[in-house]
C-alpha cells in the first residue's frame, strides 16, 4: 500500500488525492449545512412546543430506511432533463446526502430540547423570560450536548456515503473506489477506502474537540 501512497502520480492531475479529499469535504459540508438549516429549526420548534412529535419521529424513520444508491440513480434520471451540466448530478447527490443527515440532526435537537429539566424551564418562564428567551437562554444551551452528537453522527454518515458521488460521475474519494474497481486496480480501491476512513476519523475528532470547547462545564461532567 505504501508505494501507492508515495507515488507522485497519485498526488497530481485531475485525480490528485488532495483534490479528491477537497471535493469530498465540499460535498459533505454542503449537505451538512443544508441539513442543519432544515433539521435544526424543526427540532427546536418541535422540542419547544411538543407539537408534531409523531410526524418528526415518523419522517426520521422513513428517511433512515431510504436506500441511498437507488435514490441517487432515480434522482439522476429524474433531474437529467431538468438541469444542464454537472448540476444534473450534483443536485441528486446533495439531496441524498441531505436526506441522510436530516434525521439525526432533527431528532437529536428535538430530544435535547425535550430532555431539558422541566423545573429549569418552569423557573425561566416564572422569572419572566419570553418563550423565545426560554428557548435561547435555557433550552438550547442545555440541549447542546445532544445536538452536537446529532451533528457528529450526521457528519459521519454523510462522509462515508459521499462516495456515491463518484457513481454519478462526480468527484470525491469515491472516484478511487469506482475507478479502481473498473480498472481492477485493487490498491487504488483500498487506498480510497482507507482515505474515507481516515477522513471520517479526522472529522469525528474535530467535532468532538469543538463540542468539548463549546459545551458548558455544567453539562459535561
Amino acid at each position, binding site marked *: 500500500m505504501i508505494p501507492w501512497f508515495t507515488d507522485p502520480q497519485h498526488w497530481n492531475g485531475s485525480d490528485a488525492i488532495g483534490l479528491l479529499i477537497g471535493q469530498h469535504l465540499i460535498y459533505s459540508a454542503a449537505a451538512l449545512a443544508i441539513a442543519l438549516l432544515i433539521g435544526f429549526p424543526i427540532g427546536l420548534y418541535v422540542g419547544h412546543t411538543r407539537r408534531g412529535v409523531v410526524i418528526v419521529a415518523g419522517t426520521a424513520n422513513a428517511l433512515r430506511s431510504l436506500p441511498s444508491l437507488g435514490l441517487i440513480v432515480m434522482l439522476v434520471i429524474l433531474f437529467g432533463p431538468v438541469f444542464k451540466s454537472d448540476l444534473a448530478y450534483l443536485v441528486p447527490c446533495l439531496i441524498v446526502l441531505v436526506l441522510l443527515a436530516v434525521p439525526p440532526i432533527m431528532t437529536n435537537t428535538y430530544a435535547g430540547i425535550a430532555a431539558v429539566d422541566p*423545573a*429549569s424551564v*418552569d*423557573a425561566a418562564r*416564572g*422569572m419572566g423570560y*419570553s418563550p423565545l428567551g426560554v428557548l435561547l437562554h435555557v433550552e438550547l444551551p442545555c440541549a447542546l450536548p445532544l445536538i452536537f452528537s446529532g451533528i457528529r453522527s450526521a457528519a459521519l454518515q454523510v462522509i462515508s456515503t459521499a462516495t456515491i458521488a463518484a457513481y454519478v460521475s462526480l468527484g470525491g474519494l469515491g472516484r478511487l473506489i469506482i475507478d479502481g474497481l473498473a480498472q481492477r486496480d485493487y490498491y487504488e480501491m483500498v487506498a480510497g477506502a482507507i482515505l474515507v476512513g481516515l477522513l471520517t476519523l479526522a472529522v469525528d475528532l474535530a467535532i468532538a474537540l469543538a463540542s468539548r470547547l463549546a459545551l458548558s462545564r455544567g453539562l459535561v461532567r
Partner: protein
Amino acid sequence: MIVFKNVTKRYDNGTIAVDDLSLEAPKGRITIFVGPSGCGKTTSLRMINRLIAPTSGSILLDGQPTEAMNLAQLRRKIGYVIQHAGLFPHLNVVQNIATTARLKGIAKKQALLIASELLERVGLDLSFGNRYPWQLSGGQQQRVGVARALASDPEFMLMDEPFSAVDPVVRHQLQEEFLRLQRDIGKTIIMVTHDIDEALKLGDQVAVLRTGGVLAQVASPKELLSNPADSFVADFVGRDRGYRYLSFVDAASSLAVMIEPVVALGTEAAAARIVAKDQWILVVNAAAQPLGWVDLDRQSGPLRESDLNLSGTLASQDHSLRQVLDAALSAPSGRGVIVDAGRVLAGSVRLSDVVAAIQSAKAAGWGGRP
C-alpha cells in the same frame, strides 16, 4: 399587597383546583398556604404570576389586576422559587443568580456583583460562585434558588415548598436564615408548604386550604392554634397544638431565672462537688458559654470533655416558653439552661418554675407575642 378576589381554577379535565378563593397577603409579611396534597396550593401560587390563568375571579398586585399587566413585566416584579430550585445547569452559581437581575436590564458586571453579594446573604461561601448546579447539595441549590429570586430585588416573592428537598436539620437552618433575611428585606411573600410546623414557624399569616381548593381558615399562627375554625383545621393543626401554642408565649416576662454554679473543664471532681447544687454540675468555657453537664456521682479526678453530658438544649431568655420547657425537660439535672443572645450563661430554670410560668400565662389569657 397581593389580593385574591373570588379566584377559581377549573382545569380542562374538570378538576376544580381552587374554589372561590378570596384572601389578602399583606405588604412586607409572610403569608403561608398550607394544606393536604392536591388542595390547590401550587395552583393558587402559580395563578399569581399567571403561569396558570384563573378560570374566574381576579388577582391584584398593589391594587392592580394582574390580567391587565404585561406578562413579562408582571413576572419580573415577582421572585419565584420552585421546589427543586430549577437552577440552570449550564450556568455556574453566580451566573444563575444574576439571571433575574439581567432580565431586569441590569448590566452584566453589576448583575454579577449583586449575585456575589447575595451568595453570602443566603449563607453560601463566595467560593461556591463558580461551581455548577450539579456540584451542589440539595440545600445549597435551594439557597441559590432563593438568591436568584432575590437578585432582581422584586417587590413580591412566591415560594413553592422551597425547603422541602432537604433533611430536617438543613431545613431548620434554612428556615432560620430565611427569617433573618426577611427581617432585613421585608418582602411581601407567599409561601406554599404542606408542613404545618413550617407554616406556624414562618408565617405571619397562615391560610389553610382543604381538598377541593376551598379556604378553610386564614389567621395568624397563634389564632390558628387557639381558635381553629372547624374540625378540619383543628385536625390539620395537629394533636399537640396545646404544646405548640407555647411557641407563641414569651418566657421572659413570667420566668424566674436562678443562678447556676459552674466550673471549667479540668476542675477536680472533689472541687466541683463543693460548689455544685446537687450531683450535676454545669461546665462552661472561658467565655462563660455552657458546654454540658457532668454527673459528679460518677466522676473522680479532673472533668474532661468526654465526661460531658450533652443532652440538654439551650433556651434564650427572649425565647418562647416552648423552648424553655424543652430546655428544662432535656436537662439531665432537671434545670433548663438559659443563655443570652451571645450564648453566654444567664442562669437556669427548674421544670416546676416553667410549669408555673405556663400556668400563670394561661390564666392571664396567654400574653406575650402577638
